[in-house]
């Protein structure tokens, strides 16, 4: 009985930490998605300066915020939160890869204007992404996985 209580308490704090991190990631994805959708035209123009995306900037300008909103939905619902964490990890890896590619190969880095993150330069953005990746990985490692028949904490 004592062992069962200790196990249950462990599940509760792991749930709280992973839910807290999921909430922070949800905040980041929702803010950036709404920010892009509030001025799709400007976002599309910015994508035209990205060597890999310039030919498909318009559909990509819609696809990225829609993908971000899908991640928000997955993170919002407890039933799909684990999938949301995997999806956000994938998105962050792609975005960090894009930033590193731009820093390494773009002859002139375009202005990273807009949103709450406009005070960040490209290198600071990479550092922020690495921090978010670390948080995301932590949430996945802490995410409580219950064996069949086990009661989940309320």
């Amino acid at each position, binding site marked *: 009985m004592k062992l069962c209580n200790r196990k249950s308490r462990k599940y509760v704090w792991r749930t709280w930490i992973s839910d807290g991190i999921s*909430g922070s990631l*949800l*905040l980041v994805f929702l803010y950036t998605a709404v920010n892009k959708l509030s*001025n799709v035209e400007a976002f599309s123009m910015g994508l035209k300066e990205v060597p890999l995306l310039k030919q498909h900037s318009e559909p990509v300008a819609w696809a990225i915020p829609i993908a971000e909103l899908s991640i928000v939905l997955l993170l*919002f619902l407890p039933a799909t939160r684990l999938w949301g964490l995997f999806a956000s990890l994938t998105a962050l890896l792609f975005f960090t890869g894009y930033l590193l590619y731009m820093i390494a190969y773009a002859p002139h880095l375009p202005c990273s*204007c807009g949103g709450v993150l*406009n005070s*960040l330069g490209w290198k600071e953005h990479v550092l922020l992404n690495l921090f978010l990746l670390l948080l995301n990985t932590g949430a996945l490692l802490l995410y409580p996985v219950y064996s069949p028949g086990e009661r989940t904490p309320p």
Partner: protein
Amino acid sequence: MKRYIFSLAAVVIVIGSFAFNNITPTQDMFVFEYDPAASGGYSKPAVENISNSNWKYKGKNLSLCENRNEKACRVAVTSAYVNSSSNPTALQGIEIGATLSGATAHVVSISGSGNAYSNQRD
């Protein structure tokens, strides 16, 4: 229900930040961004040159840059200083002043009332 607390808090923060920050400007501001690729880098004469190959139109009422005075970034002008308010492609009737800091020039002045400029880090 407890498992929705952080998600709901995040949604409320985002809605709040957009509700309080998105104030509609009293007049449209036309935003142009300096294009170093087309104008051959960040030299002082190139930044001061208002031709549409150096300063490219980006859109109306966009946010300006971080304003670190290291290299040119964006200017925002009223409709009196663009070639066409319905289809703007170039700046007109303004003077942009720049100064060199290290190897790159940044904007230090812009003529015309209501116009604004911003720079970015190198």
